[in-house]
């Protein structure tokens, strides 16, 4: 099955162009802000006649959590359709919605494209432009030890909350502080953990990037 995901705002033309240009879309997931839900619903109705199954999801496009909500939404779709081809149309909605959709493509290695405005381009030009998303896993950038430490930290945080005493944490997994420190430094440098050094004891939390990577590899 060919699954397409697209953000929708005021304009819906990009979805119609994609349907015409990329034949064989079986299921379409649209996400939109509350303000433009009607546009998405109208599109859903009009596409029902063409046999395209459309799902509409409302996601606030301007909150602090928007990016993460869109990422989680798309990653869940990709996981649900693991055996299918997933394409992400990043054209519609705000730059933030497009950015979140493109970010999801980078995290999961999905195909992404944008649709050029036919009023602004030469008619002979291809309206759909595929984006250069490599299928390279961010998790694979870590050494085996760094992977183990990151997974251990995630398990610890899921069970007990942020790590508040690095020495005690290292001891709990049978490591010494000097042994774990370089790995923590490397993970911090790669923006996968955040180390808060303002209090007497450092606090370790996972970053949104790490949560997203781990969510996808689970």
């Amino acid at each position, binding site marked *: 099955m060919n699954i397409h995901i697209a953000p929708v705002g005021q304009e819906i033309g990009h979805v119609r162009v994609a349907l015409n240009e990329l034949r064989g879309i079986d299921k379409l997931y649209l996400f939109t802000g509350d303000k433009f839900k009607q546009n998405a619903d109208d599109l859903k109705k009009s596409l029902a006649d063409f046999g395209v199954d459309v799902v509409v999801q409302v996601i606030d496009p301007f909150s602090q959590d*928007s990016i993460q909500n869109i990422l989680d939404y798309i990653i869940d779709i990709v996981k649900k359709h693991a055996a299918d081809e997933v394409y992400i149309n990043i054209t519609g909605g705000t730059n933030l919605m497009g950015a979140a959709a493109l*970010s999801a493509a980078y995290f999961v290695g999905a195909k992404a494209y944008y649709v050029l405005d036919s009023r602004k381009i030469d008619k002979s030009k291809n309206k759909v432009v595929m984006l250069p998303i*490599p299928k390279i896993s961010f998790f694979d950038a870590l050494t085996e030890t760094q992977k183990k430490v990151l997974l251990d930290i995630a398990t610890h945080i899921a069970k007990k909350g942020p790590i508040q005493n690095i020495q005690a944490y290292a001891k709990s997994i049978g490591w010494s502080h000097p042994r774990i420190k370089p790995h923590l430094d490397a993970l911090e440098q790669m923006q996968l953990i955040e180390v808060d050094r303002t209090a007497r004891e450092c606090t370790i939390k996972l970053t949104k990037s790490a949560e997203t990577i781990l969510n996808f590899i689970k």
Partner: protein
Amino acid sequence: MKVLVSTYSNGSTVDRIFREQNFEKLILLTSSDFSKQAKEYKKCKKSEVIIIDPFDHMTTTLKIIRKLKSMNNEYFINITEGTNIMAAACLTCAYYLGIGAMYVAKDQIISIPIPGTGYSKQISSSAKQTLSKIDKELQAMDSITQSQLAGTTQSQKYTVPLAILEKACLIERFVQGRDKYIKMTVAGKIFLEMER
């Protein structure tokens, strides 16, 4: 030096980020439609303006990567202004290089989760060398076979690197007649630019 790279159409978000996050330098990316305003804007800040085609993702991406790689600074990218394609090009650079990106929504600055790993570490050095060799050979032709790539050396030594590059979508292979040809993808070209 802490440098803000920002898409620019009216400058409404640039000032705020520049001021609040203590940037020392500004690089504005804008289309020719807004170049005059961007250059005016430039006068009041230590900055430079790069004119890009707001509807050409590939050229814009390569232009930004070349620029950022030419200087050794700490970069952050603001993708709020300009077209979705400009934002997408900036974000592409951010993911390839592992640079932080942000978006200004109403009264808040939203960070986009980008791992600082970049893509370079995940590809072995032999695969990188092979990609570089493919690029060199493809200056004269559109596609190449594995034996043409190997030349007078053993072609089997390219089997593993080519498999890695294909799996990562940095090259494509297709059959024509009795031969299997190799072609570089756009992702491959950007990857190579990043490695140069």
